[in-house]
């Protein structure tokens, strides 16, 4: 088995695993972190598919900014649930 094929298979498994975990994990914060991990892996996948433009956009917007916005939202929810904390 060549190294690139092994890398691609590993990438596919990691993508599916992080996607499933992001949807099923109970803790919202963990879910958001897993979504960011998924976004970065997806950017790698786009780069492997020969679409560097989409890889750049995915890494910057999909993983970076969406992650920051969702983390902010989780922070708001926590602040609401634990007043004074």
């Amino acid at each position, binding site marked *: 088995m060549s190294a690139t094929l092994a890398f691609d298979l590993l990438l596919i498994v990691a993508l599916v695993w992080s996607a499933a975990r992001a949807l099923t994990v109970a803790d919202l914060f963990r879910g958001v972190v897993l979504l960011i991990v998924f976004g970065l892996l997806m950017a790698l996948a786009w780069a492997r598919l020969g679409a560097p433009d989409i*890889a*750049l*956009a995915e890494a*910057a917007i999909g993983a970076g*900014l969406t992650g920051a916005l969702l983390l902010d939202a989780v922070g*708001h929810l926590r602040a609401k649930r634990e007043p004074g904390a």
Partner: protein
Amino acid sequence: MKRALPVVIVALAALLGAALAAAMLDLPPHAVRLPGAVAANLAASGVAHPITAVLLNFRGYDTLLEIAVLLLALFGVLALVKPHAAGAAHPAHPLLQTLARLLAPLMVLVAGYLLWIGASAPGGAFQAGAVLAAAGVLLRLAGLLPTWAAPNLLLRVGLALGLLVFVAVAAAVLGHATLLTYPPALAGGLILVIEASLTLSIGLILAALYLASTEVRP
């Protein structure tokens, strides 16, 4: 009755899935070969990178609507936040502040590079704008930027600049041909002007989506 409902839903979903799969398999082969058409017209587009040529020239209409949608989304966010609760910058750890001060100029430089290289290689306005926005978010997290819940006039001009310049160029070339059909001699320059203003506006809008948050958490 209640027990049967999930079964019915699953059956209907499976039916829809099967219909979609059948429609997919039934699709005729492509009538138009788009990559070939793009490559054939690349010389007249004003840029050397096919993706940028599609985004800013051949399908410039889509990009024009995208920036309008982004601006509308920000209007929605700004309508939801309370400007009276606007908080000032909350200084974070000195180490984070120093790091943000060091990184922010570099990120602006990277954004400029991405914008410029977009004419001939992967890059362009959206990627450059996202890097600019990330710099804004980083500065906000370091407590170096106040909230943008109530943007002042200068900021408002910056937020709307991309759409305004895009619409102005689209209207200016209307006399030449149809909407957003640039004259080939001017195409490169016009695309650069549009992309530069788009980069600034996209960066500000994406950053403002985050910075409009009024609460400050260290």
